[in-house]
């Protein structure tokens, strides 16, 4: 049975702060009390597969490292209507996905959750490295608390 709320972590833990969402979801899933009624998914770099995680949900919370022109470490809550994508796609390959386009597609197919919330976290560094920067590592607990608050609100 599918839970009505899903928390989706996007990113790659081999790319330094790009893996922040995965770390947050791992910390959240370690907290068993939170599991009831919520699915936590490490969606990695699954591309269009995201479409299927939206199906039959009332609410999706998407966490990702995001370039938002803010101070590194900033966490920002927003909804799809608050932003436009400035991502340039060549449409050459399945390997490039714009999450806002996936949401558009889900909407057109009638499978979009009623509520979608983004938590974007401004990275300090996106490079080949398996650990977060000290800055984001130090703020991990704070981010986890913010997502917990979103889930109980």
């Amino acid at each position, binding site marked *: 049975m599918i839970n009505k709320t899903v928390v989706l972590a996007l990113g790659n833990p081999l790319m330094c702060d790009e893996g922040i969402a995965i770390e947050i979801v791992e910390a959240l899933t370690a907290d068993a009390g939170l599991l009831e009624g919520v699915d936590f998914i490490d*969606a990695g770099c699954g591309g269009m597969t995201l479409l299927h995680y939206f199906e039959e949900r009332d609410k999706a919370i998407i966490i990702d490292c995001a370039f938002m022109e803010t101070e590194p470490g900033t966490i920002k809550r927003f909804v799809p209507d608050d932003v436009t994508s400035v991502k340039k796609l060549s449409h050459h390959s399945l390997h490039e996905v714009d999450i806002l386009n996936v949401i558009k597609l889900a909407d057109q197919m009638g499978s979009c959750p009623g509520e979608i919330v983004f938590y974007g976290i401004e990275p300090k560094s996106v490079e080949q490295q398996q650990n977060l920067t000290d800055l984001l590592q130090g703020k991990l607990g704070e981010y986890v608390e913010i997502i917990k608050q979103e889930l109980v609100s």
Partner: protein
Amino acid sequence: MSKNININVKHMTRIEGHGNIVVNASEGKVEKVEWQVPEAPRFFEAMVRGRKYDDIQTIVSRICGICSISHSLVAIKAVEDAMSIKVSEQTDKLRLLMHFSEQLQSHVLHVGYLVAPDLFGAPSVVPLVGVAPDAVKTIIGVHRVANQMSEILAGRVTHPITVIPGGFSKVPEEAQLRQLQDLLKAQVEPLLAIVDVVLSVAAGLPAFERDTEYVSLKRDGDYTFYHGDIASSDGPVKPVNEWESVANEHVVAQSTAKWAKWNRKSYMAGALARFNNNAEHLSPLGKAVADKFGLVKGCCNPFMNNVAQLAEAAHVVEKSIELIDELLADGVKPEEVKVTPKAGKGYAAVEAPRGILFHHYEFNKDGICQGANLCIPTNQNHANIQLDFEAFVPQFMDQGEDRLRQGLEMLVRAYDPCVSCSTHFLDVQFV
């Protein structure tokens, strides 16, 4: 007819690299044709150095979100080769089934989300919904089942967690396999509906041919994705542990990605290569799909790679149904795996959806990785894309700049290059 052409398609920053297309012609004379790949190197080989043999697949599965199963499987095979680990028949079959799920996922997505919009004249899959809503719904439905299949076998849809050296950390329950088999049987009709939709617009695939060397795995009596030797359509066959002398990776000025060549200046890897080397072993349904499009062994039109992908999608559905029958007949049981690490070198190859994928690792006596070499199919295809470009431009340049650019972009899409999927889905501006 346009005599002057200036195409310069640039899409990327260094982090989010994809290819550039550059064509210059003056007074009807082609001056420059280049497929450039300014992708930043990703250093995965350095990342696995110093890591334990049983961590390798987890790390390399993150190289790619679309081909994560292929990377996991080829890594685990190379580790097992280095440690002289033999796996059971059950493990081999379950892994093959997992591998099929990724072929189905990737092929359906590629043809449905990237190629179909071109053929329908839509800029991407989002506006395609307005033009062909039923087709998009069908594509999404088959893709969903392929995802479920990955989840049952790999533990989750992307980046597998059940694969361990010597076997599986968790095998699927027989009831799950039965359910999966029913789902797969129900996909035959929608898959054929997708085939018919693509067939209805297949006239849009450019009639372009260039004599090409095709490289893929090959095994007697099998349309293989997972076992066998490395074969060229030119004749030579080599064992997998000699893959470095097949790829012959080399550096060129126009690309930060390495290029590959074997018996000629370039070769093609991917569905069309597999088809050209193994077509006689396709399943009946796969053959029927190829026949519908008139795809025959020896085809050297790279755009037909998309058709070969559809034939393979049908093949893997049919073969998966058979494989589940075999697994259920034998009974699926958890198997205990004991591995004692030892020093050694390991080589492996599997067919990722977009072509043959090679890994090589070296371990010390404690099973700590001392070195690695990975060669992805897209890198093997770059040189071939360049040579296709050089033949395509003179042939199609009288169609004008816009149509030529569209043709070249479709050509790149036909290869479905895997350039980089490691970085940010979100690059936004607040409104």
